[in-house]
C-alpha cells in the first residue's frame, strides 16, 4: 500500500505504511507507540551487536550493555564461550551487575545473595531450606540470549528462531573482513569508548552513517582543521568511484575513500602522510621493516568505508558507532576507538596517534560529533512540524544500478543505504 501521506491519514496509517520507496513519515521519529513496537519487533527479533571480542579477553571478563532497552551482561565463561545474560536476578528482579566492565568469578545479587556462574547457571541460594520442594535450582538460571560472533564482532538475540548470524550478515562478512585489515597485520582491540546522548530518535543516527551528503556541510569545521592530505582524502563529493552498496537485510556500505576499501591492495604509489613521519621513525627504531610500517601507517585513518549494520552498529572508517535507543526522542551513542593489538613497542605509538585522530573528530567535545548531534537534534525538533510532509530519502534514486556483485549501488552521497535500512524496517514491522 502506498497511500500518499495526508494530514487526515498520517496518524492512522499502520507503521509499515509509513515507509515508501523514496520517503518515510516523520511520525517514525516522534510516535511513542511506534517506538514500543520497534523494541519488540526489531530489537528483540534480530541480531544486535553487544561486544568486540577484545573486550572479553579471558574467562571471567564481562561487560554490561543493552539489547534494545533490556540490560544484559556479556561474559566469557571458563570454557571460553561468550554468554549474553539478562542482567536481572531470577528471584526478585534486581540488577546483578552495575559495573561497565571487569573481571569476576560469577555474579551475586546484592539483595538476597543468589549467585550465578559466568554461564548464567544458578549456583547458590542462602538458607536454601525454604525452597525445598518449591523450585528446581537447575531451572532458575539467568535468561540467556543466543550469542554468535563473526570476525570478532559479538551479536546477541532474544529470538531463538531467526537465521544464524552468518546468514543474517551475508555479503557483509566480506566487508567485516576488510574492516579488520586496518590492524596492519595485527588483530584489532578496543582502545576506549566515547559516550554521548542526543535528544532524537535512534533512526536519525542510523541514517547518518550512510549519509555522505552531510559531510562537507556539517563537518566543515573539522575539514578546516585537518591537514590538506586528510581533507583531500575525505573529498568524495564529486568522486564517481565513491559509491554506496545495498548489501541486503538492511545493511549497506558507503565507500568514501574507495582506494582504502581493501587495504591489502597497495601499488606503493600512495605516499604516507607527512604528519606520521615521527611515528615512522619510532617504528623503525622498534625494529619493524618497511612493509610492516607501511601497512600500519597507511591504515592510520582506518578503512575507506562506513559499513552500516541494521539495526545498531556501524563499522565506521576506524571505529565502531553503536546506538542504543532510550526512548522515542532520546538515543545514546558509543564511539568505540580501535587499534592494533601486538607488541607494545610497535602498537603503543601507533595507538597513541590513533587515539588523537579519534579524539579530534569523535566524542562529546570532538570537532565532528557535536555538529552531528546538533543536526540530529534539529531533525527531531523539525519533524514535529507538518507530520503529513514526508522525510525524503530519494537522493540518487534514478542513478541506482546493480553492481557486478548484484548490490544496488549509487553515489556515496545518495540515500541508497537509508532506503536499504527502511526497507528492512518495513519488513520487520510488518511481521506478526
Amino acid at each position, binding site marked *: 500500500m502506498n497511500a500518499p501521506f495526508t494530514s487526515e491519514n498520517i496518524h492512522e496509517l499502520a507503521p509499515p505504511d509509513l515507509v515508501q520507496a523514496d520517503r518515510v513519515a516523520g511520525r517514525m521519529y516522534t510516535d511513542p507507540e511506534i517506538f514500543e513496537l520497534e523494541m519488540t519487533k526489531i530489537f528483540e527479533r534480530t541480531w544486535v551487536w553487544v561486544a568486540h571480542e577484545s573486550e572479553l579477553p579471558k574467562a571471567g571478563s564481562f561487560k554490561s550493555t543493552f539489547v534494545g532497552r533490556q540490560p544484559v551482561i556479556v561474559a566469557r565463561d571458563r570454557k571460553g564461550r561468550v554468554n549474553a545474560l539478562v542482567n536481572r536476578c531470577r528471584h526478585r528482579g534486581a540488577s546483578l551487575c552495575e559495573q*561497565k566492565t571487569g573481571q569476576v568469578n560469577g555474579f551475586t545479587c546484592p539483595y538476597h545473595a543468589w549467585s550465578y556462574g559466568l554461564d548464567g547457571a544458578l549456583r547458590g541460594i542462602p538458607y536454601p531450606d525454604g525452597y525445598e520442594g518449591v523450585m528446581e535450582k537447575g531451572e532458575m538460571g539467568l535468561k540467556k540470549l543466543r550469542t554468535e560472533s563473526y570476525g570478532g564482532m559479538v551479536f546477541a538475540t532474544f529470538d531463538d528462531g531467526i537465521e544464524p548470524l552468518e546468514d543474517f550478515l551475508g555479503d557483509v562478512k566480506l566487508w567485516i573482513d576488510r574492516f579488520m585489515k586496518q590492524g596492519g597485520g595485527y588483530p584489532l582491540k578496543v*582502545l*576506549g*569508548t*566515547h*559516550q*554521548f*546522548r*542526543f*535528544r532524537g530518535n535512534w533512526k536519525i543516527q542510523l541514517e547518518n552513517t550512510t549519509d555522505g551528503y552531510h559531510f562537507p556541510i*556539517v563537518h*566543515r*569545521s*573539522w575539514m*578546516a*582543521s585537518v591537514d590538506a592530505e586528510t581533507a583531500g582524502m575525505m573529498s568524495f563529493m564529486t568522486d564517481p568511484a565513491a559509491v554506496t552498496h545495498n548489501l541486503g537485510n538492511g545493511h549497506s556500505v558507503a565507500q568514501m575513500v574507495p582506494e582504502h576499501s581493501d587495504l591489502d591492495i597497495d601499488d606503493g604509489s600512495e605516499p604516507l602522510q607527512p604528519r606520521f613521519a615521527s611515528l615512522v621513525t619510532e617504528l623503525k627504531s622498534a625494529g619493524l621493516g618497511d612493509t610492516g610500517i607501511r601497512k600500519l601507517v597507511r591504515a592510520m585513518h582506518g578503512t575507506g568505508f562506513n559499513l552500516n549494520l541494521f539495526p545498531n552498529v556501524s563499522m565506521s572508517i576506524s571505529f565502531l558507532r553503536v546506538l542504543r535507543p532510550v526512548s522515542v526522542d532520546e538515543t*545514546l*551513542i558509543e564511539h568505540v*576507538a580501535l587499534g592494533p593489538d601486538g607488541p607494545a613497542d610497535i602498537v*603503543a605509538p601507533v*595507538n*597513541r596517534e590513533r*587515539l*588523537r585522530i*579519534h*579524539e*579530534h573528530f569523535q*566524542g*562529546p*567535545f570532538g*570537532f565532528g*560529533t*557535536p*555538529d*552531528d*548531534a*546538533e*543536526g540530529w*537534534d534539529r531533525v527531531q*525538533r523539525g519533524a514535529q512540524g507538518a507530520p503529513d510532509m514526508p522525510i525524503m530519502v530519494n537522493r540518487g534514486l534514478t542513478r541506482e544500478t546493480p553492481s557486478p556483485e548484484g548490490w544496488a549501488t549509487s553515489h556515496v552521497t545518495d540515500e541508497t543505504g537509508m532506503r536499504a535500512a527502511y526497507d528492512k524496517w518495513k519488513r520487520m514491522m510488518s511481521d506478526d
Partner: protein
Amino acid sequence: MTDSPQTVGSRTAGSPIPQLTDPRVIRAVELVWQEADLLDRKEYQTWQELYAEDAYYVVPIDAATEDFADTLNMVYDDARMRRMRVTRMTEGYSIAAVDAARTVRTVSRFVPVEVLADEVTLRSAQVVVAYKRGRHDVWAGEVTHRISLSESGDRIALKVVRLIDSEDAVPAAGFLL
C-alpha cells in the same frame, strides 16, 4: 613510555601544608576565576592566551588515569589543538558552536595541593549549568590546575577536568569546560 602530564605533584617531606591565604595560592585562584569568566563569556581567544605554550588542557574519560596520552579522552589539547579548537569555536562553521548553550559556572572548594616558588597546583570543584532550548544540563567535575607563576604573567600549565559522569554518556557540547 608516555609524555602524559602528571596532575599530582610530590611535596617535599616536612614541607608545611599549603594555606589558601598564601599569596601564591591567591594568585592562582584569581587566574582560575578569570578563566571561568572568560569561558562563560565565550571569549575563547583571550582564554587561550592564559595557557603556557607547553600546557595541556584535558577532559579525561577514565576517572583514575594519569596517563592521558595512552588513553582515550574527551579533550586532550596541546597548544596546536587548543588553537584549532578556538578557531572552531569562533569561525562560524561549527553548527554546535554557533548555537551553543549559555553557561554559568562556579569554581570553588579550592584545595592547594602543592605550592612552590614558581608553581601552584590547585584542586577545585566546578559546577557548570548549561542552558539550551528549554533544558538545563549540569556538568559537575573535579578540576586540577597547575599554575606557573611569573613576573611576566601567571599562566595555566595544566588543566584537567574530571567530570563525575565522565565514564557515562554526556551531551555533545558546543562550549568548553
